[in-house]
């Protein structure tokens, strides 16, 4: 049983891998799912509840739309709270992005100008969310593709301020940093060195791909983790110590054992960093 063991390196859980994932006993292993796929009844929820009896779970939302200029959808929050009560996750997280607008859901993590207005709205939305869920959530840094105008704060300042105003923690996605640094032309190491270590409750790793023109990197989660991302990860963990680390894989899904082998690389990095908090 891994349900109460310290969190080491985890894997994004896919229905195709349910049987081997349920049976796996690797030390420190945990799983993460998008709650929107399980905020229903029926067989899918029953599968997740079986998994939750044996393994630690994290709920990583994609649809709370915290950066929309609107309060979070009460119905969505209620459903999320019900799921939290059903599977008792060790972590709950969301993205610094928006996806629902005027009652329509646009399945992506959309960008916004980091204005003072956005900071106030998102802080308020995080507080409302945490009130509704009865717990803190972690906020993930997004992938960037566009040169957006109208920023009043840089991303580190913005995230730092969200932590200060709401008591939320941060989910640091290193692949997002690598992809964004390439696309927008900043230095990923400098970004990571400034990232507020004390607030990081989870780290994400994933693969990326090139767009058709080859100019942009896309946060596609459909390949193995690239070496530059591993290098940034090792550098980060050497600076901040071990943190629960999750490997995301959504496309070109390999066999479960192949993901476990990739996960072992992250676990080794964590083991060498010393005891997990």
């Amino acid at each position, binding site marked *: 049983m891994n349900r109460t063991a310290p969190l080491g390196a985890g894997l994004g859980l896919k229905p195709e891998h349910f049987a081997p994932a349920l049976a796996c006993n690797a030390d420190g292993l945990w799983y993460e799912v998008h709650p*929107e*796929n399980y*905020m*229903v*009844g*029926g*067989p*899918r*929820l*029953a599968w997740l509840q079986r998994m939750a009896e044996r393994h630690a779970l994290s709920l990583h939302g*994609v*649809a709370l739309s915290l950066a*929309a*200029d*609107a309060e979070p959808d009460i119905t*969505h929050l209620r459903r999320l709270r019900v799921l939290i009560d059903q599977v008792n996750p060790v972590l709950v997280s969301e993205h610094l992005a*928006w*996806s*629902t*607008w*005027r*009652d*329509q*859901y*646009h*399945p*992506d993590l*959309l*960008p*916004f*100008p980091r*204005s003072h*207005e*956005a900071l106030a*709205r998102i802080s308020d939305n995080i507080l409302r969310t945490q009130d509704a869920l009865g717990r803190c959530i972690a906020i993930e840094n997004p992938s960037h*593709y*566009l*040169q*957006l*105008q*109208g920023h009043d704060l840089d991303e580190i300042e913005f995230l730092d301020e969200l932590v200060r105003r709401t008591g939320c923690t941060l989910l640091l996605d290193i692949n997002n940093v690598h992809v964004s640094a390439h*696309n927008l032309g900043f230095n990923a190491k400098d970004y990571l060195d400034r990232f507020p270590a004390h607030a990081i409750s989870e780290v994400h790793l994933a693969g990326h791909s090139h*767009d058709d*023109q080859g*100019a*942009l990197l*896309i946060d596609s989660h459909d390949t193995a983790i690239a070496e530059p991302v591993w290098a940034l990860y090792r550098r980060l963990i050497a600076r901040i110590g071990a943190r629960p680390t999750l490997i995301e894989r959504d496309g070109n899904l390999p066999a479960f054992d192949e993901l476990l082998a990739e996960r072992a690389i992250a676990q080794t990095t964590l083991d060498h960093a010393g005891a997990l908090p």
Partner: protein
Amino acid sequence: MNLPLGQFQDAFIDALYLRPAPLLQNLTRQPAFAVYRNTVMAGCVDALRANFPSVETLVGADWMQQAAAAYAQHTPPDDARLIRYGATFAAFLQDSQASHGLPYLADVARLDWHWCEVFSAIEQPCLALADLAGMTASDLGRSHLRPRQNVRWQWFDAHPALSLWRCSREGLPWPQSQPWVAEGALLSADQHGVNHQPLEAGGCMFLDACAAGHSLESASQLALQRQPDLDFTNLLGRLMQARVFLPLSFD
């Protein structure tokens, strides 16, 4: 120009769906804007392909991709739970019959949609045979049998829709001996998955009447009017076995 957040988001959505968005020209002329357009559209299309696999089997991946994109362009999801996306896709296919030429495609889509609804329905208590023990015929006649949320049924007058759907969904060849007759279907879910079985016209009428709030006595009369040769005892046994009903309620 710095836009207020809400105004930025209105314009961004317009631009995503290829409507004029003059306030965001500095964004939409960047090639990177296509990443968001492509990702949103791919998310919608992938959800429809996942929710309507039998339709895709009948029309092929390329046609399905185009139809799903056309539908998504005008009907984005209204729920982040994407297994609930596509409630009106069958009607969309019915309206576009000229482009696919398959008069039964919309009914196959309706069965795919019933599967999604049943698969994702909230678990509810179930009427057990033991609950009926000791009831008088009069009590039973006055009682209301209400279908559970994880049950769907439909009668299809024009096509063997269940057989078409089952062959498409399970990748089975169409049997030459299969008669082209009307069919009804009953779909129900348990913790292990979705089950389906044929349901006669009288059975569909009976469940329609139960869902509309008729008493058992009234619903059974309507079912027998619809199908005079209906074996009602046999029907009730099959429905009980499929765990179709909520526990009893009375007037």
